């Protein structure tokens, strides 16, 4: 089902302000915390303050209404724990408790909960619960998790390994033997918080009148949540309705099934009032799924003319205490292994991955998932190889990239790169940044000065909108891959689009409206887009993996096309002409001799169907969509950063940042640019600022915005963005996903730029975030090594 876009002025490709804006600009958005739920009891969780310990006793205070406090024992009869297992061989699963039992395994793990008329009172009550924990030594840092004497997170396991995978393509040893230069590097991306500005939030109420449990959650995956809650609560799905209202971002933090969601849903069935939990920021920093925490050892081989001959990768991921559903604890490691070959023509590749358990919060998806790590590993390596060979790093990239004549190209990791011109993106990035000018300025800097300039690039391919087979290949028990849409034309001639996808802030109410406009040539703002309600929308898996526009856009287009066919048939009947002579223009069905407005047509058809006897009833269509190729549509980009580094302090000033990217057909440039800039801002956070520090006891040390630094308006420069638009041959309109790309390259681009600035000293920047302390220390270490040499 291919469709050339750009037929309509307000359809695909139109730069349009968003329909969502009006309510938010007046403070009328409705987030879970804003819902008016009469009689609601607010919930406060009591959480473990130790990273690892035996839970000896949880004692309720005397003289308090027992029903206001729930322990694991109270909850157990009503809710099962969720075990996120994997089909990967040797995977070790452990149930994720709804409330801790036996042991606590990370600071922030929920142990009990209390409820009261206000959150403050609930916290007062929770503080009265007595928790007796015998602290145990904690397994914390990625370097130590496989030590033989490391504490074990799960007593019944022989070690802390969720799973190990390996793979070999070609022969890296032969490549090594042929290589003119081989280098080995170790890289580390420290742990991050995801930080949607709206924290997680759940409310639940059992409506006895209609025997329906309604769960409101700030979730990216309402249908998936409904399915899992039905299983864990052991009730039929028909009795469960999940509603995700306005969401203050998610970025991956809100697409796993959480114990708090299960607990509140289960409790709501047992009480007569609604219950609600609004995560506070401390909880969000310790108990929401976290990200990164990767360590790499890369050995790469290149020929004298700069061809990348082979890569060996050892990938370690500190996945935290539990495997989360549906992603599992191997999500990052397996994705990283597949993405390290990046946009390159690589023939020899060998990898090993270890997904490790620790006494940290569980790792979950975060914008880019493992790709920022994979990109960092390969792109830092490319730069250092280029340096060894005396090549410009951008030139080394161009020489090794998959070229357009090879498209579609099946990568060494068996992913189908669908379309595009990867080397051209690099060349354009050098022009966008005025590369030669920066090189000149760099050379002009006096050696005696204390500030250095550097320019760095990072290229990547961004797998988006992947289908069932891809998820299955990663060991997921649930193989996500289809999205549904239902389009209804009502008697007033207005459209309502019901989609299984959830917009968590990215503007799907606008872009999906544009898809409908593409078919019917109507004002996209006149389409009501209903999303995030399992009772109203056809099934969909949710918003993640840069899939929403491709998948829900494809589904919406499918539904619109089917409905269009029907509307034209009705038009033909009413106008007494052949349907093939009719088309949609400006809200009307028009032919050579005349036309009829959609409202007249709908009224006629719905109120007096007997006037149109040849067309089946109903003015609606439902369509489920998946792209033709299931390894996804591959967006790609080259990012470039220009930095100034202070040799005395290690401070890095970001002077310029540019992106040349190709996400196929752009549906709304305003929104796509917003995705890119927002993604880059988060990526710059990864690159320069954000780090969840844990001490040796597993105590998180950065649990507020005072010590977990997020990029602010001053830290993000005005971006330079250039689009290439190569449609995907496999998706509707040729769209590719654009949600995550921005966040993938900044750590690598910035680290390459800083390393470039420090080449004369030989200091390598191999760890994120690139803090002044790390830069300064790298300089000291390089200095010492030179003196020793």
């Amino acid at each position, binding site marked *: 089902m291919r469709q050339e876009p750009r037929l309509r002025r307000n359809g695909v490709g139109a730069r349009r302000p968003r329909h969502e804006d009006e309510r938010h600009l007046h403070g009328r958005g409705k987030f879970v915390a804003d819902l008016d739920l009469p009689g609601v009891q607010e919930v406060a969780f009591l959480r473990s303050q130790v990273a690892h310990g035996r839970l000896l006793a949880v004692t309720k205070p005397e003289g308090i209404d027992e029903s206001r406090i729930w322990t694991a024992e109270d909850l157990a009869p009503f809710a099962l724990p969720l075990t996120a297992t994997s089909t990967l061989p040797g995977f070790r699963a452990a149930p994720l408790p709804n409330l801790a039992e036996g042991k606590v395994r990370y600071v922030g793990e929920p142990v009990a909960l209390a409820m009261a008329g206000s959150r403050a009172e609930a916290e007062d009550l929770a503080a009265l619960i007595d928790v007796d924990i015998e602290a145990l030594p904690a397994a914390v840092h990625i370097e130590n998790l496989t030590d033989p004497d490391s504490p074990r997170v799960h007593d019944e396991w022989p070690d802390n390994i969720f799973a190990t995978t390996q793979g070999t393509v070609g022969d890296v040893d032969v490549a090594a033997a042929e290589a003119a230069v081989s280098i080995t590097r170790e890289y580390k991306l420290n742990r991050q918080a995801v930080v949607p500005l709206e924290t997680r939030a759940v409310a639940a109420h059992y409506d006895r009148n209609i025997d329906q449990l309604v769960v409101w959650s700030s979730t990216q995956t309402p249908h998936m949540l409904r399915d899992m809650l039905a299983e864990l609560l052991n009730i039929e799905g028909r009795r469960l309705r999940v509603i995700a209202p306005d969401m203050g971002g998610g970025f991956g933090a809100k697409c796993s099934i959480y114990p708090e969601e299960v607990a509140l849903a289960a409790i709501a069935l047992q009480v007569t009032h609604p219950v609600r939990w609004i995560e506070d920021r401390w909880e969000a920093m310790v108990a929401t799924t976290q990200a990164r925490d990767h360590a790499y050892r890369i050995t790469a081989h290149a020929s004298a003319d700069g061809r990348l001959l082979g890569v060996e990768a050892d990938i370690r991921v500190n996945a935290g205490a539990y495997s989360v559903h549906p992603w599992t604890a191997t999500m990052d490691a397996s994705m990283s292994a597949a993405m390290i070959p990046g946009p390159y023509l690589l023939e020899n590749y060998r990898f090993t991955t270890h997904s490790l358990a620790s006494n940290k919060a569980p790792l979950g998806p975060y914008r880019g998932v493992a790709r920022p790590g994979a990109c960092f590993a390969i792109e830092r390596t490319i730069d250092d190889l280029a340096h060894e060979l005396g090549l410009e790093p951008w030139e080394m990239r161009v020489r090794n990239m998959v070229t357009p004549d090879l498209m579609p190209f099946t990568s060494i990791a068996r992913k189908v790169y669908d379309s595009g011109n990867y080397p051209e993106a690099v060349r354009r990035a050098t022009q966008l940044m005025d590369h030669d000018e920066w090189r000149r300025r760099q050379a002009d800097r006096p050696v005696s000065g204390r500030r250095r300039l550097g320019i760095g690039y990072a290229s990547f391919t961004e797998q988006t909108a992947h289908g069932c087979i891809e998820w299955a290949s990663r060991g997921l028990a649930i193989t996500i891959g289809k999205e549904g849409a239902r389009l209804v034309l009502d008697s007033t001639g207005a459209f309502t689009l019901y989609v299984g996808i959830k917009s968590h802030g990215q503007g799907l109410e606008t872009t999906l409206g544009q898809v409908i406009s593409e078919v019917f040539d109507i004002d996209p703002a006149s389409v009501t887009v209903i999303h995030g309600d399992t009772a109203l929308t056809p099934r969909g898996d949710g918003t993640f993996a840069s899939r929403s526009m491709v998948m829900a856009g494809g589904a919406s287009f499918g539904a619109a096309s089917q409905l269009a066919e029907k509307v034209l048939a009705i038009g033909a009947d009413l106008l007494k002409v052949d349907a093939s002579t009719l088309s949609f223009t400006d809200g009307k069905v028009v032919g050579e001799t005349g036309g009829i407005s959609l409202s007249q047509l709908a009224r006629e058809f719905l109120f007096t169907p007997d006037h149109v006897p040849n067309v089946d009833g109903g003015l609606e269509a439902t369509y489920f969509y998946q792209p033709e190729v299931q390894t996804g549509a591959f967006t790609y980009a080259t990012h470039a950063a220009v930095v100034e580094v202070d040799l005395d*302090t290690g401070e890095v000033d970001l002077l310029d940042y540019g992106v040349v990217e190709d996400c196929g057909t752009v549906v709304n440039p305003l929104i796509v640019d917003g995705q890119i800039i927002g993604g880059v801002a988060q990526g710059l956070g990864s690159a320069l600022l954000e780090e969840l520090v844990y001490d040796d006891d597993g105590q998180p040390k950065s649990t507020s915005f005072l010590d977990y630094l997020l990029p602010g308006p001053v*830290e993000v420069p005005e971006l330079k963005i250039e689009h290439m638009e190569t449609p995907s041959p496999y998706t509707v309109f040729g769209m590719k996903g654009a949600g995550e790309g921005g966040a993938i390259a900044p750590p690598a681009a910035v680290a390459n730029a800083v390393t470039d600035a420090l080449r004369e000293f030989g200091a390598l920047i191999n760890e994120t975030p690139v803090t*002044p302390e790390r830069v300064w220390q790298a300089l000291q270490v390089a200095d010492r090594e030179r003196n020793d040499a």
Partner: protein
Amino acid sequence: MLTELGDDAKILAGGQSLLPIMNLRLAEPAHLVDISRVGDLMGADEDTTSVTLGAAITHQAIEDGLVPDPCLGLLTTAAAGIGYRAIRCRGTVGGSLAHADSAAEWPTVLTAIGADVTVRSAQDERTVPLRGFFHGFFTTSLESDELITAVHLPRFAKSTRWALEKTNRKEGEFGESMAVAIVSEGSASIWLGAAKDVPVNLAHVETLLADHPADQVPALGEVRDRVAADLDLSVPELDLAQRHRLQIHAVTVHRALSRALSPEVPA
């Protein structure tokens, strides 16, 4: 009232430091005495040699020049550097001094200026120089029944040059280092914040300056050695992380000196 309530009471003088701690339940005072709208604490007085600012004057009032700045713009600059505007609109100069965070602007800046505070209890009133007022992390010479009512600032001579340098990783955040240099004919007052639990007088750096040709900035290495001495650090015993922290302080001080001593660059 404070005498009656004793340790159970906290004075709320804007609350921009206290409320975050209370929201985290790290402080749960039984009583809060809000002084942020006490008229007596919101006034400013000046004469030829000094200015007196009421303790409840907000950072924003200073930032916006609604009260006199006898320090040739140092107060305005310091105020504008505190957190964010919405914080500055509630936070007060007296509250900041009583909170006594050495990484905050007022303790270090006002100590460097040589300001005094008036401290009052139900029975008594006394004037305390800020040099000596800060005892440690969040502790001062204030008794539990006392509150700061005013800050007294000497007027700078017209020829005085000053610089306030803050090094932080993100705009508006607390400084990892904060140096104040006030240089006038033949004397220098150089103080460092965020390095120890209280603002530190950099006496060795002051001596270095006195021994140095006027208007010439000492080299960073020299400054670093003196800062280390002022912080009682033995450089060879420091690990890399500690050495970096020292380095940040040294650079911050050096930047402040460069600005304060350079005749071309207005402070």
